[in-house]
C-alpha cells in the first residue's frame, strides 16, 4: 500500500520538481521564460486531475463535486436535526470556557483549537476567493455562499467530533488526529472493509491539497500582492524568500516566527473586518440595495456569465474552498483539544464556517458590491461582461485580491497597503497550518521518522517556489481540485460514520438536559 501511495505522489511531485530545480538556479534575465516554463509544465501535469474533479454532470455545466458538497452538508444538517442552530449558544459557552474543568488549565482549550483551525481557513479564500466568486457569479453568488456556510457548519461538526474521538494519543503526550485516523479506526469499529485504503486515499489528496490550496495558491496570491505594490518582478524570487522563511519555521524549528504570526494574524483579521464594517457604516444607505442585488442575483444572475447557475456554482465553490467544511482539514487542527467529550469540539468547530463564510466572506462581498467596482449597465440594471465574456467587467480590469483591494481602496485610500500586509501574513499562516495537515497525512503513510518528516517539509518548500512562479489560472484550478478531492473521500466515509456521531449527540444532549454536564465556576 505504501508503494502505491509513493508512486502516485512521485508522478506529480517529480514532474513539478524539475521546474523548481530550474527556478532556483536561474538568472534574472531568464526569469520570464522560466516562469512560463514552470507554468506550462504545471498546467500540463495537473490538467487531467483537474478535469476529473470538475467534470460536469452529463449534458449540463454543473460540476458534480459542487453537488457532492451541497448534498452532504444538507444531509448532515437534517440528520443531526439542525445541530448548527440548536447548539449554537452551547458552542459559544464552550469557547468561553464555561464547561472547562479548571484542573485542565494549561491544556489546549476549545478557544485555542478553534483559533488555530480558523487561522488555517481565514485568509485568501475570504479576500481573493470571494472576489473571484463575485467577479464571475455576481453579487448573487454571496447568497449561495452564505447558504453553503450555514449548511457547512453541520459538515464541520461531524468531521471534528470524529477527529477528536478517533485521534491517536501517544505515550509521550503528543496527539495526531484527522480523517485518516477516524476513517481507519471508525471503519474497523463498524466492521466495514476498506478503511485503511480510504484513509490512505484521503492522505494522498490531503498532501496534494496542502501543496495546492495550502501552499501554491497562497504563494501565488502573496506574490501578486507584493508585485502589485513594488512593481512587476519574477515570481520565483518571492517564492524563494517565502520558501526560506517557511523552511526556517518548519525545518529549522524557529517557532518564534510562527508564534509572532499566530499573534498578528487574528489582529489583521479584526482589522480587516473592522475596515469592512467602517466602509459599510459609511455607505449604510447602500446596504439595502446591496442585499437586494445579492438576493435578486441569486435567482436571476443579473446577466452574469452562466446566469443563476453560474452564481450558485461560484458561491458554493468558493465557500467550500474558504471554510473547508467537509474537506477534513479542520478535523486535523481540532483534534488536539483537551476534552473528555469529543462532541464538544464538534460544537465548537461549527462556529468556524459561520465566522469564516457567513461573517467575513459576506463582508468582503458587500464591500465589493457597494464599491461600484463591478460595472453595471445603468439602463438594464444588469452587469456588463468583460471582453472574453467570462466574468463581470470591473473598473481597471481587476480580479481576485486586486478586485478586493480596489474595492476597499475606493473608500479608504491607504487600505490596499494594509491589505497587502494582511494577505502576505494570511498566506504565511495558512501555509504553516497546511504544512502541518500535509505532514500528518504524510507521516500517517510513511511513518513518523525524522527522515520522512524532512522529505515532506522540503517538498513543501519547493512547491512554494512553483506556486509563486506559476500564473493564477492553473494554480487555482489545481488548488481547488486537490482540496475537493479530499472532500470526495472524506464525505464518502462520513456517511458511514455519521451514526457514531449521532450516538454521541444523543448521549451528550440527554446528559446536558439532565444537568449531569454542568458549567464550572470560574
Amino acid at each position: 500500500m505504501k508503494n502505491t501511495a509513493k508512486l502516485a505522489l512521485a508522478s506529480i511531485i517529480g514532474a513539478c520538481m524539475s521546474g523548481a530545480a530550474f527556478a532556483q538556479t536561474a538568472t534574472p534575465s531568464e526569469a520570464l521564460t522560466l516562469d512560463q516554463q514552470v507554468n506550462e509544465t504545471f498546467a500540463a501535469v495537473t490538467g487531467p486531475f483537474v478535469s476529473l474533479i470538475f467534470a460536469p454532470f452529463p449534458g449540463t455545466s454543473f460540476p458534480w463535486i459542487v453537488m457532492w458538497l451541497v448534498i452532504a452538508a444538507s444531509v448532515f444538517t437534517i440528520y443531526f436535526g439542525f445541530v448548527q442552530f440548536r447548539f449554537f449558544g452551547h458552542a459559544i459557552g464552550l469557547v468561553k470556557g464555561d464547561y472547562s474543568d479548571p484542573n485542565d488549565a494549561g491544556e489546549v482549550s476549545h478557544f485555542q483549537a478553534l483559533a488555530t483551525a480558523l487561522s488555517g481557513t481565514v485568509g485568501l479564500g475570504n479576500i481573493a476567493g470571494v472576489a473571484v466568486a463575485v467577479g464571475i457569479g455576481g453579487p448573487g453568488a454571496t447568497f449561495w455562499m452564505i447558504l453553503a456556510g450555514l449548511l457547512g457548519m453541520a459538515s464541520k461538526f461531524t468531521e471534528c467530533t470524529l477527529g477528536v474521538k478517533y485521534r491517536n494519543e501517544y505515550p509521550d503526550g503528543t496527539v495526531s488526529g484527522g480523517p485518516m485516523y477516524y476513517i481507519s479506526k471508525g471503519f474497523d469499529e463498524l466492521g466495514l472493509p476498506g478503511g485503511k485504503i480510504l484513509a490512505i486515499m484521503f492522505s494522498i489528496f490531503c498532501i496534494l491539497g496542502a501543496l495546492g490550496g495550502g501552499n501554491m495558491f497562497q504563494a501565488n496570491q502573496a506574490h501578486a500582492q507584493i508585485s502589485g505594490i513594488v512593481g512587476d518582478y519574477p515570481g520565483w524570487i518571492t517564492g524563494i524568500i517565502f520558501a526560506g522563511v517557511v523552511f526556517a519555521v518548519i525545518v529549522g524549528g524557529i517557532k518564534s516566527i510562527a508564534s509572532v504570526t499566530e499573534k498578528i494574524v487574528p489582529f489583521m483579521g479584526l482589522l480587516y473586518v473592522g475596515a469592512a464594517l467602517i466602509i459599510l457604516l459609511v455607505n449604510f444607505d447602500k446596504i439595502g440595495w446591496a442585499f437586494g442585488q445579492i438576493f435578486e442575483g441569486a435567482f436571476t444572475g443579473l446577466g452574469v456569465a452562466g446566469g443563476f447557475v453560474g452564481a450558485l456554482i461560484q458561491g458554493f465553490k468558493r465557500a467550500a474552498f474558504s471554510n473547508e467544511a467537509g474537506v477534513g482539514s479542520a478535523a486535523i487542527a481540532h483534534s488536539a483539544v483537551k476534552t473528555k467529550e469529543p462532541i464538544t469540539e464538534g460544537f465548537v468547530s461549527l462556529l468556524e464556517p459561520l465566522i469564516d463564510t457567513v461573517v467575513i466572506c459576506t463582508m468582503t462581498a458587500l464591500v465589493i458590491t457597494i464599491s461600484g467596482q463591478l460595472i453595471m449597465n445603468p439602463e438594464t440594471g444588469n452587469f456588463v461582461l468583460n471582453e472574453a465574456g467570462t466574468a463581470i467587467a470591473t473598473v481597471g480590469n481587476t480580479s481576485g485580491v486586486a478586485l478586493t483591494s480596489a474595492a476597499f481602496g475606493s473608500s479608504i485610500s491607504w487600505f490596499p497597503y494594509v491589505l497587502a500586509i494582511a494577505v502576505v501574513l494570511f498566506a504565511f499562516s495558512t501555509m504553516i497550518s497546511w504544512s502541518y495537515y500535509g505532514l500528518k497525512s504524510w507521516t500517517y503513510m510513511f511513518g513518523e521518522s525524522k527522515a520522512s518528516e524532512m522529505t515532506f517539509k522540503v517538498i513543501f518548500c519547493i512547491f512554494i517556489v512553483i506556486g509563486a512562479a506559476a500564473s493564477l489560472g492553473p494554480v487555482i484550478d489545481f488548488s481547488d481540485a486537490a482540496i475537493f478531492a479530499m472532500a470526495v473521500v472524506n464525505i464518502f466515509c462520513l456517511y458511514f460514520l455519521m451514526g457514531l456521531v449521532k450516538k454521541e449527540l444523543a448521549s451528550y444532549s440527554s446528559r446536558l438536559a439532565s444537568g449531569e454536564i454542568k458549567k464550572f465556576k470560574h
Partner: protein
Amino acid sequence: MTAKLVIGLDGHSSGERALAHAEHLSKLIGDCELIVAYVVEWSPFSFQTAEENAQRHKRREEEISVATQRVIDPAVAKLAAAGLKASGLVRHGDVAATLNAISEEHKADQIIVARSSDGGFSQRLFGSAVSNLVMSASVPVTVVS
C-alpha cells in the same frame, strides 16, 4: 485552629524572601500550615500553531515537572527541615487569579508573595501579577519587599 498561609513563588530570588517571611510568620503563629504554590502563566485565549497544540499536553507535563523539581520541592524541603508543615502545588493560569483560587480552595487566611524586581513596559501598562493580586484577592495579601 490551624492557620493556613499560601506562598506564591515565581522561581526568582524574590521568592526566597517570601518564603523566609512565611517561615518567620508561621513560627510566631504556632499552629500553621504552609501551601507553596507556583503558577505557570497561561491563558486559554492565547493563539498557537497546530503543532504547538499537538504537543501541548506533553509541554504542560514538562512545565509542571520542571517547576516542581526546581522551585516547589526545594522550598517544601526547606520548610519541612525547619520543622514546619508544608505542601506544594503547581498550576497553570493567570497568576493573580490562580493564587486567589488556591487560597479559596484551601480556605487560607493569607497569601504571601514577594514584590518582583522585574519592571518593563507591559507591567506599566497592565500592572504586575502582584498588584493585580492585591487588588483582586479575597483574603489578606502580604507583599514582601
